[in-house]
Structure formats: C-alpha cells, structure tokens
C-alpha cells in the first residue's frame, strides 16, 4: 500500500496512535454497539496522551475507525477553532497523517464535543461523540449493578419520574442538554451533552453515530435510519429551544445560537454555535444585524484567520 511507502504520520507511533490489539478490541465493541443500538458496551479504555474529559473516548473510537484516506473534522461546541477541536485535529494529523477539514460536507469522520453539525449528514459519514457520562440514569442511581439491571429489564420509570418532577416544579421539562432518548424502542441512552435542539437530528440520520466514553470505558452507537425518540409525555411533548433573535453575523434563524457578551455595558449578540455553517452562510452573502458592524466583522475575521493559519 502506498501509505506505507510514503509515511505521512509521525513514524514513532503506530498508525493512529493505538496498537493493533487495542483497535481490534474497540472494533469488536463498535460492531456490538451497532448491533444493539443504545446499549453501552464496556471496553478496555486506554490511557491517552491527554486528560480524561478532553475526549479520550472519542479519540479512541476515531483512532479505531480512521484510515489514511479519510478526512477528519473535529468540533467543540460546534466550533472548529476552539482548543479541544484544534488539539484533537492536530493529534490525528500527527499520528495518522490524515487530511483535516472544517467543512461538514467534505468530512468522512466528524468527531464532536457537544453538538451535531447544522448541515445534514450523508450516508457513509461517521459522527463520533465525546461522552463524559454515558449512563443516563447515573444521577438517579449511582450503582452500576443497579443501572445495568434497569437497562436489562427496560425499567426506566425513574427517568420519567425525574422529567415529571421538572414539570411539577417548573411547569415544563427543564432539561436542556443531555436530554435522554429511547433508541430503537428499547434502550434509554444519553445523547452526550448535546443541546436538546440537536436531539431530533439523531432520528433516522443517514450517518453512523458512534459514542465513546474514555473515563467510564463505554462505547455505544446509533446505526443509520434508527428510531431515536426524546422522552416526553402526551400532554408535555418534546420541544427544542427557540430564539427570538437571529444570528447576528449570518442572520440564520434556524440554527443553534450562542450568546456572546460584547462589552461591559450589557451589550451582547447571538451567533451560530456551528462556526462552519455560519461562515458558509456569510460567504453566500447572508448578513445578520451586526454583519456590517466593524467590531463584529473584525471578530468574525479573526476567527476565520485563525482557521486559515492551521
């Protein structure tokens, strides 16, 4: 294979960092995870060269899936240019020599922390989620032996009680991220801390969705075109967040918005959390209310230049 003749990655490491036995073990876990959607498969998570909480699970999944011809995109809260995303992208350029991109459409593998890209995914793409706590019932039941039983017997009343308590206390379900979903009508699953805005994108998605939790050593998955239902009640149906504002830079009204403080006098703006989506729209000529504002433009330009520097 030509990839061997011309080594494009740091040859001090095995391709994609992990040793082959570890990859085999993770690959077997991934296939089981695909076969039982939403079930958390235990795996022998390895020590990675970064701290738990920085995506060690996602990185191990990506390392086991990625090939030399794949193009990788990494996002952190939707942004391509934040610390976690930049360092993981640099890690894989170094240990796997793969091409990286910020364009959702061009990527074969997208590793994500806490968002699903706004642009629709296609068949053959792999979305790898970094998961801090894979067990949706953990805050309600700390014992693994018990939560495993609850999953075994599909005994999820406790979670419904938790959502009901939200309604009793606040008049609505107040959970806004890590909103629990039922996968293929069988397993209660944590979607990782994505905003509930992204939950509907998991349903019937043509891409393969893989979840890796490094500290908790669990892998789970959603195959393409699978049923993923956010828990709700007949009289309190699931709803996603909405904003009165549009994105201040690109004017998008259908994307997930972050609030950005502009000064110390209470000035603020809302911008797309998905930086690539926002930049694409601005390139197409869309402008938000601050799109012509010099400060906002400078802010956006700096972000783009930082992206181009890499």
């Amino acid at each position, binding site marked *: *294979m030509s*990839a*061997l003749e011309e080594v494009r990655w740091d040859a001090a490491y*095995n*391709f*994609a960092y992990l040793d*082959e*036995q570890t*990859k*085999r*073990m993770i*690959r*077997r*876990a*991934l*296939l*089981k*995870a*695909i*076969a*039982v*959607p939403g*079930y958390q*498969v*235990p795996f022998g998570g390895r020590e990675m060269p970064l701290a738990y909480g920085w995506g060690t699970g996602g990185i191990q999944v990506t390392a*086991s*899936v*990625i*090939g*030399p011809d794949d193009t990788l995109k990494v996002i952190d809260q939707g942004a391509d240019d934040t610390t976690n995303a930049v360092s993981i992208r640099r890690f894989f350029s170094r240990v796997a020599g793969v091409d990286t991109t910020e364009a959702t459409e061009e990527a074969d593998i997208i590793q994500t922390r806490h968002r699903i890209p706004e642009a629709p995914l296609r*068949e*053959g793409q*792999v979305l790898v989620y970094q998961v801090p706590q894979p067990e949706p019932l953990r805050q309600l039941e700390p014992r693994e032996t018990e939560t*495993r*039983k609850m*999953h*075994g*017997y599909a005994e999820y009343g406790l979670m419904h009680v938790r959502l009901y308590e939200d309604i009793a206390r606040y008049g609505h379900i107040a959970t806004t991220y890590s909103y629990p979903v039922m996968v*293929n009508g*069988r*397993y209660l699953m944590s979607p990782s801390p994505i905003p509930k805005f992204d939950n509907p994108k998991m349903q*019937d998605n*043509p891409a*393969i969705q893989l979840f890796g939790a490094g500290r908790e050593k669990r892998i789970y998955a*959603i*195959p*393409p*075109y*699978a*049923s993923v239902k956010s828990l709700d009640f007949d009289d309190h149906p699931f709803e996603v967040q909405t904003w009165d504002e549009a994105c201040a830079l690109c004017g998008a009204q259908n994307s997930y918005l972050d609030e950005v403080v502009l000064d110390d006098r209470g000035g603020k703006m809302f911008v797309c959390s998905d930086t690539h989506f926002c930049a694409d729209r601005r390139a197409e000529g869309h402008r938000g209310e601050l799109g012509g504002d010099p400060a906002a433009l400078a802010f956006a330009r700096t972000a783009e230049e930082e992206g181009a520097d890499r």
Partner: protein
Amino acid sequence: MSTSHDAALLKPGFTDAVFEAQAGFRALLDALAYAGRITTLEVSLDPPAPLDPATAAIALTLFDFDTKVWLDAPAAAGPVPAWIRFHCGSPIVSETHDAQFALVADARHLPGLGDFDIGEDRHPDRSSTLVIQVPALTGGSATRWTGPGINGSIEVAIAALPEGFWAQWDDNHALYPQGVDVLFVCGRQVIGLPRGVKVEV
C-alpha cells in the same frame, strides 16, 4: 510430527496488517450499520480452503487471543484451525455455545441459531457473531428486511440457506436485545444481519 510440513502449507495473512485490517473493519462497520446491503471487502488475500477471502479478512480483522472461535466441520477439517491459531492466536472451541465468533464455511452445516451464545440480559454484547458463507448473496428466495440501519425496507435474496433458517431468525430476533448477529459472506462480499433486523419471508 508434521509441524514443518504444516508451516510450509500455511497461507499468509494480510500483507499490511494495519491498513488492511482498518479497511476490513470499515467495510464490516458499513455492512452491519447499513444492514442488508452488499458491502465489498477490498482485500487481496490468498485464504486457506475453504474460506472465502472476506471470511479470512474478517478473521484477521477481528480475531485475537481474546476471542473464542468455533469452526463448522468443513472449516475445521482443513488448514483453517492452524491458520487461525498462527495468525490470530485465537482458541478454537468445540462447543457452539462458547464461541464469540463462528465460522460456517458451508451454510448446510449450520447448527441451530439457538445453539450459539445469545448473551445475557444485562450483557447482550456477550453473544456469538456468526460468519456464514453462502454460494451467492443474490438470487435466493426474496426476503424483506426492516429495522435499524435500513431506510424503510430492503429486499435481500441470499441463496442456499438451510431450510427453516428464517424461522430460526424470527426466534433470534424475538430475543432482542439478546441474540446472535450474522455476517453472510460470498467471495469478497458481505451482508450484515444484526439481531435488531426483522425479516419477512
């Protein structure tokens, strides 16, 4: 003693273990994720008889000392056990129920699906994965598959499966989330059938 003789007859494994295993795995991931579609494993393997290239690639991609492997009679009779021991280091087991992976070289020799390990209610991942070689992945009697990984439904017509196989699959599917998963193999091609898929004959 025929050790040296056996070694001379031993067929090679992957030429490039890292990249061929990666490509093999991606094909298997696609096959199980997009259930019912024909996926091709782009491998240039000289497999030991009676294994198809894809079957051998699955073994080299997924088997190691952690995986117990069961072989059907045609596979167990030839050079395959020695080949698996040498390249993968996997223990070969004689009981279907102990197997994490089962290689079925000839679908006519397929034991009942219920003889394999269906996993446990709290650990459905501890179940057998069956690799079943068939003469053709098309041209058999038509079946309609629905379930996760399938956009609506898909027509699959795997040839020469033993009589009563789909009735057994119904029972296996009814055990969900327990149950076995199947990879049908012919030549370099694979069709994945995870336990969550419902099959109508």
